[in-house]
């Protein structure tokens, strides 16, 4: 079936209405969308894909594979940690990746609940990013322990020793939170993909592709009796994920907030971590989506509107984070607790002042550019800021962990911390791993939610044709579900 463009009747009176910005430009047809998105994984990948993929794989294997093998065979000592700084880079990276892993589910879930329809173009990629980020994150706490082979002690399974876990430990909460988060995100992501997998299946020639996509699309038929359940399920998952997202990073923050360490022991941590996570997550989404958009020519699907909205969220969350930073300082000063004050003093002025400076400028200052429409619309600026934020979020964790531990309570044990080359190698390795997984995702899975994007097209409205009678550009461009739902897109 061809393009459904609406030819107008010249005798009809024109009622002038403000043109409403469209989510999908140029009145694309269903088929165009299908072609465009499936094309990405049906056609050969552009050279740039290989140019990114091959190095990523190598880095991942050497960094993660090699690094961890050396670590396990030799001992945690190959990392830079010491009796003074028991948690160094590994936990910094863990929190960093977990943070990144928050945008995806958040975009899908919260924006879905709040009927932000612009999410449809980006949520799939964002969710994928979540999964991969959590995979990277999970590596650290796991390999960070001294006796990897005893890690099963963390699982509450009956044993001959008749001894159990300590359910009061934030670390155990963390184990549960992160694994739950990973599972739910995976389910959410996969369910969302089923109809699209079916699309690919139906386009595929009989063969291995058809077999695999066939299996993973579970025999989806797109009947309304499936759709109605499907939508309820999706709504439920969204409703479950939203508090989950908030909880997970709160629990991660408990690792610090429930301790007695000066500079960690603060009630502001949960909200501040969550905001930070959203902040960093969105930045990461943009950092990977902007190039993807360019490479695969998705300009009509991922419009400036999307990018601008995300820029606004970054601005908002960035400001929240900035507020948290300042609030910490104020509380430390106001509490009059010498040790608390000192902890923050050493963050700002101690041996790691540069980290604090980097954090502040990247996380608090750089997003302020987004006050200006120009900066929100100039992709180079957006890209730049997002890069800065990514770095800044890493530094935030560095500041929290590495600058606090070497200057804690007793000056007698103060000692500078340096990461080892293995630390660095492993971190770079996880970046490689992340890219590898994401590139594979682009190659084999629909990176944009086909069904939902079609859903946002004007003609998807069942009453679309009726309204052809009164020729109302505004109305027609605005699908009926948008009449009925609370309109909060701007």
């Amino acid at each position: 079936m061809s393009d459904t463009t609406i030819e107008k009747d010249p005798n009809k009176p024109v009622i002038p209405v403000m043109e409403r910005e469209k989510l999908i430009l140029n009145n694309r047809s269903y088929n165009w969308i299908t072609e465009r998105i499936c094309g990405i994984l049906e056609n050969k990948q552009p050279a740039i894909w290989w140019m990114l993929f091959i190095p990523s794989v190598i880095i991942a294997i050497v960094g993660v594979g090699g690094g961890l093998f050396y670590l396990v065979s030799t001992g945690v000592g190959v990392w830079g940690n010491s009796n003074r700084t028991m948690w160094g880079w590994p936990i910094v990276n863990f929190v960093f990746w977990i943070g990144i892993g928050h945008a995806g589910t958040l975009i899908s879930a919260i924006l879905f609940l709040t009927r932000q329809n612009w999410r449809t173009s980006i949520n799939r990629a964002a969710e994928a990013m979540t999964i991969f980020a959590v995979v990277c994150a999970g590596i650290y706490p796991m390999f960070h322990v001294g006796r990897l082979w005893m890690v099963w002690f963390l699982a509450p399974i009956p044993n001959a020793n008749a001894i159990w876990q300590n359910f009061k430990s934030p670390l155990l909460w963390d184990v549960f939170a992160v694994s739950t988060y990973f599972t739910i995100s995976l389910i959410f992501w996969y369910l969302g993909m089923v109809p699209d997998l079916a699309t690919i299946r139906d386009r595929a020639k009989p063969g291995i592709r058809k077999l695999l996509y066939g299996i993973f699309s579970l025999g989806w038929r797109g009947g309304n009796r499936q759709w109605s359940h499907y939508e309820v399920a999706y709504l439920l998952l969204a409703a479950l994920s939203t508090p989950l997202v908030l909880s997970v990073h709160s629990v991660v923050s408990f690792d610090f907030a429930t301790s007695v360490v000066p500079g960690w022991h603060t009630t502001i941590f949960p909200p501040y971590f969550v905001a930070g996570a959203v902040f960093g997550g969105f930045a990461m989404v943009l950092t990977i989506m902007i190039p993807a958009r360019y490479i695969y020519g998705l300009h009509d699907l991922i419009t400036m509107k999307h990018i601008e909205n995300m820029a606004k969220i970054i601005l908002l969350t960035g400001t929240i984070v900035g507020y948290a930073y300042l609030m910490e300082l104020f509380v430390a000063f106001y509490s009059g607790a010498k040790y608390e004050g000192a902890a923050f003093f050493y963050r700002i002025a101690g041996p790691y002042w540069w980290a604090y400076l980097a954090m502040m400028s990247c996380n608090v200052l750089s997003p302020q550019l987004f006050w200006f429409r120009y900066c929100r619309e100039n992709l180079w600026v957006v890209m730049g800021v997002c890069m800065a934020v990514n770095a800044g979020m890493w530094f935030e964790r560095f500041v929290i962990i590495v600058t606090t531990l070497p200057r804690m309570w007793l000056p007698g044990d103060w000692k500078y911390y340096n990461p080892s080359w293995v630390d660095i190698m492993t971190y770079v390795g996880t970046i490689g791993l992340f890219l590898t997984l994401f590139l594979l995702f682009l190659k084999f899975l629909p990176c944009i939610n086909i069904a939902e994007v079609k859903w946002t097209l004007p003609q998807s409205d069942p009453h679309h044709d009726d309204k052809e009678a009164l020729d109302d550009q505004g109305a027609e461009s605005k699908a009926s579900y948008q009449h009925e739902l609370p309109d909060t897109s701007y």
Partner: protein
Amino acid sequence: MANFFPRWTNLLPLKIAVCLIFVVAGLTAAFSYYATPKAQRVGYQPDQPIDYDHALHVDQLGMDCRYCHSSVDKSASAGVPTANTCWNCHEHVQKGSPKLAPLRAAMGVDEDHAPIEGAVKKPIKWVRIHKSPDYVYFDHSAHVNRGVSCQSCHGDIHKMEKVHHDKSLSMAFCLDCHRAPENHLRPLEEVYNLDYNAEKYLLENEIKNEEGERVTTQKQFGELLKKNWSIHPKESCATCHR
């Protein structure tokens, strides 16, 4: 176009799911049984250089545990008899028995117990049966001196012609007793009496508890002893791990 997947594939997922459930359940069951000390240790019955017969010595000849395991009530380790402990009797008993060749070698004597010139005494190498891990510090004296019998952990040694590992001796095993010692406590005089039977003992000697009613079962008896001897077994790590 025809269906890509044949019709039988429709039930396949279900079948796979069911199989998985069974496999996983089976593996868990197998692991949780075979990977426990119970399955690993109980029944371990190695050959000894001299097939020493506890049944004979203890049950028939009525020797006391402490004759050979002399440090059981003094030290953490019960101690394995030195060769000359055996020699005390076997210098005269069972002279020249082939079974005792290792003992004679240890004492550096020949068949008719004449010392061999310049013989190097070869100690008897017993094979260890009960062994707690290196990080477990079990103290025999602490237990036997508080009314816990050898039997509680080693089983009916006195009936064993060839000793085997009788109880699991897993941490859970220890905890069971530490949590409910009353099931094992017995009068100090009876600790080394492996034929002891609580009910029988209580029939023979009349024992009353605070309330003045007669104690008849091990449990009540244990409770009484626990109270009299103020026994509070510990469950904290440092009790056994240092």
